[in-house]
Structures are given as structure tokens and as C-alpha cells.
């Protein structure tokens, strides 16, 4: 199998990590470094000319030497998302944008209509769009038509930690878009969720809360990185066939007669 590329970018470590909600910047840096994460998500927020909090954060991220994927978190309209993407491109100096167009606040699920429209505008404008979407195959098709080269279906609501709520949908998406890099984004709570996503054939997982809110974020980041690697390797190694009934692992032949 030829190695999967994300907009021409190879990623040895398929765990993508969010940078929010950590107990401290030092703990975030520790989590990123020790887990070997190669790409992190960031956002844009209002900067005060006095405190200049963003400057320190940005310096810290640059010191990590990782790829940054700015998001449009919290944007509810196409215009907001597009404007935010442009501002992010200037500040972060990257064409990459994690496109979120939120449609509903209890589940934080995407507005797939606004998403497709914003994706078209941004790809036309030279962006490399990483859309946060659902398992809807038709929406996925339109995002690809719009020029997206990566799709990021949700596993569960952002920050819920529920894991993979619709395994059927994820499996169908993988089967339907065999050649497209697919990332499960949001909703994962445990390393086994990440492993399961990769065992389904997904190419990466993106999460934040499960690591940031863990008792020991760095240790949890490493755990997710290992589980992601494990699931990816299992998918490539070719799992056994599941059986309805038991089958002795120890050969029966040659068993002693000791009655």
C-alpha cells in the first residue's frame, strides 16, 4: 500500500492533537513532545495590546516545531468561517485550514450546507481545507467535488468522549472513499476508540479534550499515539476472521490420553 498523503504531506504519527484546555502551556508542550505528535490544531482569538497572550502561545507552538492546522471553531456562518480562514492564513502562514461551520450548539455538529459552500470558496481561493463533517456520503462527495482532499467525519459530539457513535456510517464512508484520506475528528474519549477508528481503515484521528482533560495529559497523549499506531498496524497487518464459535488455539492433535 502506498503511503497516505494529506495534501502532499506525510504523517508518520497519525494522532493529530488539539491545543486547548490543558492545565498549562508547559503540560501541552510536554504532551506534544512526548507523544511525537506532528500536527496540532490552533485557533484565533481576540488579542489585547496589553496582555498579548497570543504572542507567547504562538512562540511556544513554533518552538514545538510541529505543523499547525488552524481551525474556524465557533463559526456558525460561511462568511465568519471564510474570513477567519483568511486571517488564519496570514497569521499562521499556512494554507491549511480545519473548516468548522457549526450548525447546532448542543451537539456542535456541522452545518453541512454552509460547510460545502465555505469549502468551495476556500479551495477556490487556494486553501487546503480539512472539513469537519458527518458520515453523510453525499455531503462527503460534494466536499470532494469542492476540492477537499481530506475528510474529517466526527466520531461523536466534540468534547463528549463517547467514542464512535455510528460505526456503520464510518465503515460505509471508508468503503465508499477508499482513496481519500479520512480522519476521525472529535468525540473520542479513550485510546481504544482511536485504535478502533484506525482498525476501520481510517488514516488518522484528531482529538483534544480526551488528552487535555486527562489526569496526566502527557501520559494520555502517549497512550493515544500508541493506540493509534496499533490500530493502523492492525489494519495493515490483516486481522483474523471473527468466528461465532470457539476454536482451540492449542492443537488437539497429539493430546495425551491420561484418564
Amino acid at each position: 500500500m502506498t503511503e497516505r498523503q494529506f495534501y502532499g504531506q506525510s504523517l508518520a504519527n497519525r494522532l493529530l492533537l488539539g491545543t486547548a484546555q490543558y492545565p498549562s502551556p508547559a503540560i501541552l508542550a510536554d504532551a506534544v513532545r512526548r507523544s511525537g505528535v506532528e500536527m496540532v490544531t490552533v485557533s484565533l482569538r481576540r488579542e489585547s495590546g496589553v496582555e498579548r497572550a497570543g504572542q507567547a502561545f504562538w512562540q511556544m507552538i513554533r518552538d514545538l516545531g510541529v505543523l499547525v492546522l488552524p481551525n474556524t471553531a465557533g463559526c456558525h456562518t460561511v462568511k465568519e468561517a471564510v474570513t477567519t480562514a483568511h486571517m488564519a492564513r496570514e497569521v499562521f502562514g499556512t494554507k491549511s485550514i480545519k473548516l468548522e461551520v457549526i450548525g447546532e450548539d448542543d451537539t456542535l455538529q456541522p452545518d453541512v450546507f454552509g460547510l460545502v459552500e465555505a469549502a468551495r470558496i476556500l479551495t477556490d481561493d487556494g486553501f487546503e481545507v480539512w472539513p469537519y463533517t458527518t458520515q453523510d456520503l453525499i455531503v462527503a462527495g460534494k466536499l470532494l467535488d469542492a476540492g477537499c482532499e481530506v475528510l474529517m467525519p466526527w466520531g461523536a459530539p466534540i468534547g463528549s468522549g463517547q467514542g464512535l457513535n455510528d460505526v456503520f456510517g464510518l465503515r460505509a464512508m471508508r468503503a465508499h472513499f477508499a482513496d481519500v484520506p479520512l480522519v476521525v475528528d472529535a468525540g473520542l474519549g479513550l485510546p481504544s476508540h482511536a485504535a478502533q477508528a484506525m482498525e476501520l481503515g481510517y488514516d488518522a484521528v484528531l482529538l483534544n479534550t480526551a488528552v487535555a482533560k486527562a489526569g496526566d495529559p502527557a501520559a494520555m497523549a502517549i497512550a493515544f499515539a500508541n493506540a493509534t499506531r496499533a490500530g493502523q498496524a492492525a489494519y495493515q497487518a490483516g486481522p483474523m476472521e471473527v468466528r461465532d464459535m470457539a476454536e482451540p488455539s492449542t492443537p488437539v492433535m497429539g493430546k495425551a490420553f491420561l484418564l
Partner: protein
Amino acid sequence: MRVLLNGDEQQVEAANLAEALEALNYRDVIVATALNGEFVPHDRRAETPIQDGDAIEVLAPMQGG
């Protein structure tokens, strides 16, 4: 004149966005700017006039998921 800076009313004397940022303490700060909801690239700030009542957004890198 009065502008709305990141949602807060501010008094500032400036002919364009570049001057406004200067006056508002943003010298040597890495930020992206929007004027009345429209993105204003760094190299266009100097040629972007501002007037009383304008809404200026000044954004910087921050934690994100």
C-alpha cells in the same frame, strides 16, 4: 474618534488601520485584522482608512481543538 476594538469602545486618533493599531498598542504584535467584518491583510492596513464607529477585530494565535 471612537472605534469598537474587539468589542470594546476605544478612543483613537488615526487616519488608517495601521496607525490605529500603532496607537492601540499593537506595535510588533503578530495579529490578523478585520474592519467591520472584512479581513484586512497586513499590507493593506496602511491604505485602509478608518472612521468614527468602525469595528476593528484584532486576532492572535490561541489554543484550539
